[in-house]
């Protein structure tokens, strides 16, 4: 009962806010090159927590340059991934909205489609001609551009070099090598806790990568309808391969990838599939988990972790985009900030921190950075989720995760699980 009321109150607050929301027309494209006197103004920016824990210096230098150019101050609010979309929805419904917002690239289409962002003049942003499609495609709608790519991350194969050497294994070059390595490692390291290949069942971008590895797709557009294609034989074959690799994992098959680097840090996993930066977080962790800025402590596997591009499996290209909220109080200042925050100078600093840049023209620079080669390599063979406006709802409704968990735990056959997921995808995407 109490919760019903809390729910109702939250809904009402959102509705009230919607009712009082400003109706200022936001026609026109904010000019990133206009000279605006921002003295006394404060630009509000929402970034995700990765910027705070991973590359705060990039944000700081962009803010300094922005303040020097416009005189305006910047207030950054860092957001947590988890449930951040509910917060975004409630905020966008209100009248006090931030000027700039970061969203994950899989989340973006839904917001662009529903009119949450300002249109932008693509040509005003550096490297826009060579933006990574996995990032820029979610920004495009009806032939216009609504957000700017910020950074990308590719998934790679992360392995324990120590265990590989002891088992006499070489870094995998083909997918068959990966399977052999998983098998050999498991044989040489008995013990119920040991995983040849740590693979949590609900790691959806891993499952999807295997799913499309045989040339299949997740969903396709037929006319104005979307059709889930997970039950396609090619996809089923990919998922069967995925199921095989999860059988070398002794971890919880219902978990997602959230704590996989902590598990890998125990030294009881031979390989895992993760973002490039997870190789570093497996090797050192902040001493105080609540303070990303605290001193780092080395884990058991420090210095024993390496990465290679996952052979024969395309990499899911994750990442983030930044856009100007449709109700932003300072759209032109916001455009200038985004311009500075995503220019080559900022991107080069991001590369230093191990993230992938937003444009192919910068990928070679990323590949030259030690430890980044695998990610940059993997980004060249990448895939992305369907560009349906409601795809984010498929993810929010756990459709893919439930399908994968039911396959990994053996509760459903690949055929049944994919059929069920297709039905759910069809309902959500076409509702």
């Amino acid at each position, binding site marked *: 009962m109490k919760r019903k009321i809390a729910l109702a109150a939250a809904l009402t607050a959102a509705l009230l806010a919607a009712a009082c929301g400003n109706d200022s027309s936001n026609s026109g494209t904010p000019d990133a090159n206009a000279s605006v006197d921002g003295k006394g103004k404060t630009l509000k920016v929402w970034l995700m927590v990765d910027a705070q824990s991973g590359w705060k210096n990039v944000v700081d230098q962009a803010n300094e340059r922005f303040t020097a150019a416009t005189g305006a101050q910047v207030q950054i609010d860092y957001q947590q991934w988890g449930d951040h979309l509910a917060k975004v929805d409630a905020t966008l419904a209100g009248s006090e909205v931030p000027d700039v917002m970061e969203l994950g690239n899989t989340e973006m289409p839904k917001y662009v489609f529903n009119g*949450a962002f300002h249109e932008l003049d693509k040509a005003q942003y550096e490297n826009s001609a060579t933006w990574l499609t996995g990032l820029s495609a979610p920004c495009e709608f009806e032939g216009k551009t609504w957000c700017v790519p910020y950074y990308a991350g590719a998934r790679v194969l992360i392995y324990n070099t120590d265990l590989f050497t002891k088992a006499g294994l070489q870094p995998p070059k083909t997918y068959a090598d990966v399977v052999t390595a998983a098998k050999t490692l498991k044989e040489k390291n008995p013990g119920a806790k040991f995983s040849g290949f740590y693979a949590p069942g609900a790691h959806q971008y891993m499952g999807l990568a295997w799913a499309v590895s045989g040339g299949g797709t997740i969903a396709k557009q037929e006319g104005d309808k979307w059709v889930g294609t997970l039950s396609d034989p090619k996809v089923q074959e990919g998922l069967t391969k995925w199921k095989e690799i999860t059988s070398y994992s002794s971890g919880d098959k219902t978990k997602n990838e959230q704590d996989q680097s902590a598990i890998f840090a125990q030294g009881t996993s031979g390989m895992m599939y993760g973002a490039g930066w997870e190789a570093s977080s497996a090797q050192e962790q902040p001493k105080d988990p609540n303070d990303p800025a605290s001193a780092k402590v080395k884990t058991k596997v420090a210095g024993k972790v390496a990465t290679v591009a996952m052979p024969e499996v395309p990499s899911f290209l994750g990442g983030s985009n930044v856009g100007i909220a449709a109700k932003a109080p300072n759209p032109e200042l916001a455009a200038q900030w985004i311009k500075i925050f995503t220019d080559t100078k900022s991107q080069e600093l991001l590369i230093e921190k191990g993230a992938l840049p937003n444009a192919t023209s910068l990928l070679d620079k990323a590949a030259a950075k030690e430890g980044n080669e695998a990610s940059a390599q993997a980004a060249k063979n990448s895939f992305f989720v369907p560009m349906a406006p409601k795809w984010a709802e498929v993810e929010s409704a756990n459709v893919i995760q439930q399908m994968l968990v039911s396959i990994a735990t053996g509760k459903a056959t690949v055929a049944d699980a994919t059929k069920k997921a297709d039905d759910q995808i069809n309902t959500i995407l076409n509702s």
Partner: protein
Amino acid sequence: MSVASPSAPARPTPPGPPAPGAHVRRKRRSSTSSGLVPYALALPALFLLFALLGYPMVRMVVLSFQNMRLRELFAGLTPPWVGLDNYTKVLTDSVFWTVALRTTVFTVVSVALTVTIGLAVAMLMRRVAPSIRIAMIVVMMFVWAMPQLVATQIFRWLVDADFGVINYLLTLIGLDYESHSWFAEPLEGWAVITSLVVWAGIPFIAITLNAGLTQVPKELIEAATVDGASPWQAFRNITLPILKQLIVIVTTLSAIWNFGLFTQPWVIRDGRPSSDYQTLATYAYSTAFKTNNYSLGSAISVITVILLAAVMVFYIRQMFKIGDVD
């Protein structure tokens, strides 16, 4: 919330047998404006109740007859009216019925366990030395005071497949529980959630029933024992009838609370419970806020409120009955 305290619903004192002369006095008072004073005094409370509970409820009901999506939310448009569409959709959806059945079964099982164990603990408290009784009350107060969120996080860590102490201990005593996932089988997962809810629910019941047990006259039990009644007979024929009304109240309250279960499955499944772990409350929330079907979520909530109202009626009737006895 008002239902949390059994004394909350204000009720005028029941008219007893009229004392001589009372009739005249009452007649005179009601003819003047002073008869409105009690109502005027109740007004601020009623206003607050309406503003805090009534208004959102009304908005929720209105919303459930519209089709509110993200676009309407962002643009501040009035959502289109769709009549009973949302209700038809919910009531014809087998997922909803599965969730409703699961919520009901959970409520029955968890309430039965909480009340039985709570009563047992209360009886034990009457038997032990006063110092032990105080220790028990203090410990239970700590359990009671612990926020649901904190308790759930702790349970989540206890049963974690990779780092959890439960798996560690079970492995130590020789069982094969290394890296065992407690949530792969929904039945096991629900056992964990139920233990958590029951554990957190016992203190309220035990302390309340312990207070109730102090009302059971010792002489009555002694007399029954002298007459040859077994402890079980004494319990069934003396203790239970005296406690009956209190038990009905704590049972209804627990049922109301547990039926609205949200925090425990939500947090223990990391904010994304799979379909096996949805309850009516999490299902309504997910529908409204995760897939932005605000109206559909509202319809689910309204149906839940109606289902709960049935239990509430039972509770309020019991409250009135107690009032009459007094």
